[in-house]
């Protein structure tokens, strides 16, 4: 990227790229201007969505071929003047996501584009066919159909990986409008541009950066919406069946009594700090059946050894933020941590970098109980609350989690302590828990074929009966 002139991040509208007069400066974590992001007005959004509604989806085969081409373009080629290498360095510089995590997310996005149907068809009901002309409809069959034609995505900026998800909607024939996070617009810009270069029409997938006030227009003008946000966003759309909210992850690890947690320390550390602890699947709490202090001490020792490096460094593992934002997060953390025992980060987590910006270092706090609610605080860096848990507390306190990882030695026949089967039953039954991982699996484990927070297809599609002839 030429250092002299900021990169122009244009909106990608239904008639091609659009450069607005209203442009927002995108800076890196050191405060240096990197790009100017065109913010489109409300009228542009409503007209773009009208264009998406009018467009007819490509036939399935062509959609899949285009997605596969887009995977290669996104991961390998120059897009709007940015090589892949320049792209990943820019994302690391701007968002503070460690470079290896950016690369891994880019791989994930490319894989999702190549195999979008693997995820999308995961939700296909066993009794449903894909086409009303399928022979099975002659005697009556469920046909899997879209619940709408246009999906709006109010995207997250914490990490590029969530952009892998909405590709499934394109595979299913939706037209998609993305409102990028203004903190990290590079990934969706590159992805939408790659999809267009690969064969999707300008009126099939659009990138509509807007300021906060216009965000609602995307949701209004689309049939369905995928929205990322905190508890406030979850509450706001709780009653709206056409909005799917990806809320806080609050992933948890449960260490049952008698399990050899020292042998699983790698899995715990990895769950907490993988990709800089910036994802919804990173563990933010460890529940310990028994004394939490030794677990907290061991985690602190391991997490404390992670080096502070600029995000663009090949060995970077911790997130970088602007100094102001890092300080704000630190203040919030220390306020939240009152009443706990600090094992790491009690004096602060901000480590200023010589070149500007600050690393957010890991934090490990031991909370005295669950009642205080410390364990619900999820922050965008490796920050974990270690809390005591007993069978009397029950499984419900592990609820409200994207992932619960149960570190136990053996299902059904523990060497020491109560059987865990009943507990697993309860966790799997709990409707506020999205995923349950039993045994030596990190909370960030994912696979294209299994759901991340339910299948997106459960939200996008419905079955309807067709009988003919």
């Amino acid at each position, binding site marked *: 990227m030429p250092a002299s002139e900021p990169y122009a991040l244009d909106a990608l509208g239904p008639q091609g790229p659009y450069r607005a007069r*209203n442009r927002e400066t995108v800076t890196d974590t050191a405060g240096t201007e990197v790009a100017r992001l065109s913010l489109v007005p409300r*009228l542009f959004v*409503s007209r773009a969505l009208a264009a998406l509604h009018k467009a007819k989806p490509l036939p399935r085969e062509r959609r899949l071929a285009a997605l596969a081409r887009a995977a290669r373009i996104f991961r390998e080629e120059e897009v709007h003047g940015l090589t892949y290498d320049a792209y990943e360095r820019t994302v690391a510089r701007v968002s503070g996501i460690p470079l290896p995590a950016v690369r891994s997310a880019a791989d994930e996005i490319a894989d999702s584009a190549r195999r979008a149907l693997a995820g999308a068809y995961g939700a296909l009901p066993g009794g449903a066919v894909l086409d009303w002309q399928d022979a099975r409809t002659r005697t009556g069959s469920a046909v899997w159909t879209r619940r709408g034609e246009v999906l709006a995505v109010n995207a997250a900026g914490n990490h590029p990986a969530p952009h892998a998800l909405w590709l499934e909607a394109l595979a299913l024939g939706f037209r998609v409008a993305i409102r990028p996070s203004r903190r990290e617009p590079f990934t969706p810009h590159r992805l939408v541009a790659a999809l267009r270069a690969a064969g999707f029409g300008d009126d099939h997938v659009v990138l509509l950066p807007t300021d906060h006030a216009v965000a609602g227009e995307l949701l209004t003008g689309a049939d369905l919406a995928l929205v*990322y946000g905190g508890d*406030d966003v979850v509450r706001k759309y709780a009653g709206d069946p056409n909005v799917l909210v*990806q809320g*806080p992850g609050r992933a948890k690890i449960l260490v049952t009594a008698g399990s050899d947690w020292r042998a699983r320390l790698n899995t715990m550390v990895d769950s907490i700090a993988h990709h800089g602890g910036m994802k*919804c699947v990173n563990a933010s709490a460890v529940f310990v059946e028994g004394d939490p202090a030794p677990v907290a001490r061991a985690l602190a020792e391991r997490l404390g050894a992670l080096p502070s490096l600029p995000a663009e460094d090949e060995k970077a593992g911790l997130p970088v933020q602007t100094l102001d*934002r890092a300080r704000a997060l630190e203040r919030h953390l220390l306020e939240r941590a009152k009443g706990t025992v600090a094992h790491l980060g009690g004096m602060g987590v901000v480590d200023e970098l010589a070149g500007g910006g600050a690393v957010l270092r890991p934090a490990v706090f031991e909370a005295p109980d669950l009642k205080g609610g410390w364990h619900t*605080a999820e922050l965008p860096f490796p920050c974990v609350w270690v809390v005591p848990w007993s069978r009397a507390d029950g499984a419900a306190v592990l609820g409200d989690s994207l992932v619960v990882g149960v570190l136990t030695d053996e299902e059904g026949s523990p060497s020491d302590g109560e059987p865990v089967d009943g507990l697993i039953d309860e966790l799997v039954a709990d409707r506020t828990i999205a995923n349950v991982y039993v045994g030596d699996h990190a909370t960030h484990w994912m696979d294209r074929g299994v759901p991340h927070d339910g299948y997106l297809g459960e939200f996008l599609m419905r079955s309807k009966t067709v009988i003919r002839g």
Partner: protein
Amino acid sequence: MSAADPLLELPYGTTPDPEEFLRAAIRWHFSKETGAPFWLDRLGRLDFDPIEDVRSFDDLKLFPNFANELRDVRAEDLIPRGYGDRPSIVGVFDSGGTTGAPKRVIMLQEWLDMLLAHSNAQLDAHGVPRDVNWLLAIPSGPHMVGASFQQLVAQRGGLSFSVDVDPRWVKKIIARGDQAESDLYTEHLIDQLQHPLRSQDIGVLMLTPPVLERLCRRDELVDLVREKVKAIMWVGTQLDPDTRNLYRTELFPDAVLCSGFGNTMTLGHVTERPGLTDDDPCVYDPFSPYMTYNVVDLEKRRPVEYGERGRVVMHYVGKSLFLPNNVERDVATRIRPLPGDVGDAVADIAPVREFDDEKVIEGVY
């Protein structure tokens, strides 16, 4: 026979010397024989003699801001005695009423004639056609704009088709943060607009930017506007340059797009300066010397630099009313006025905004 100084009764197109005009107006409003009870009652509260001490428009800042007293004053007391018993009156009109009880003014027909002469000339300069019908979604009743434009459209040779807007109800909905209700109200306006758009020969559309934007969600209405409407006049709030450009290039490239800026405390409206490009700010010139503006730094009590933002202070100086030094809640960019104009031209007028500090919201998103 009028007892007034002829300077106060010049026909449109003849511009008086501003300071001579100002002094004539002051004499009229502060003389026992001709002044309104409102001003004569307040003479004792002034620590200066307006007739002696006010020589120039700059001296208007000697006046305290009496605008708030327009909330309670008896309306008849606003009419200068010099008009006699039965002057021709258009109506009693309220300010928006954003903050508590509305401020109230009386509009005389002779002023409206002058205002509309100016307005007509400005619309002609923009290329807004005459002899066409207008469809207006603007406030009527207590709001001056409705009555003014009814007369304006008639003068221009068209019929007015109107949809009523209650801005006070809209403000209440917005104040309580009920976005859904606010959307319903706007949809309600569009539902009403569609009927005359379909059945009548509408040549000019007058509405607020949010209503125009909402209208553009419906392709049928966009097509009707493209087919019938020659000019769109937007009023009430600001339109950002990108949206304006989209209307001019993509949505309605064949229509004239221009805006009006009105304020009850200056007894009327002005139309944007003709000939601005899409990259210019939206500039409004004063109707000098009657309706004039200053853009100031309130704390330092002095004008901001040209191109800088400041609070808008408005003055109305005329035969029918004198209302100096009214500090508005709006901010605007100070623009160099056209030669001969009093005060400042203004651009990008918007309500005062407040900013919050960055707050931490928990979670990774």
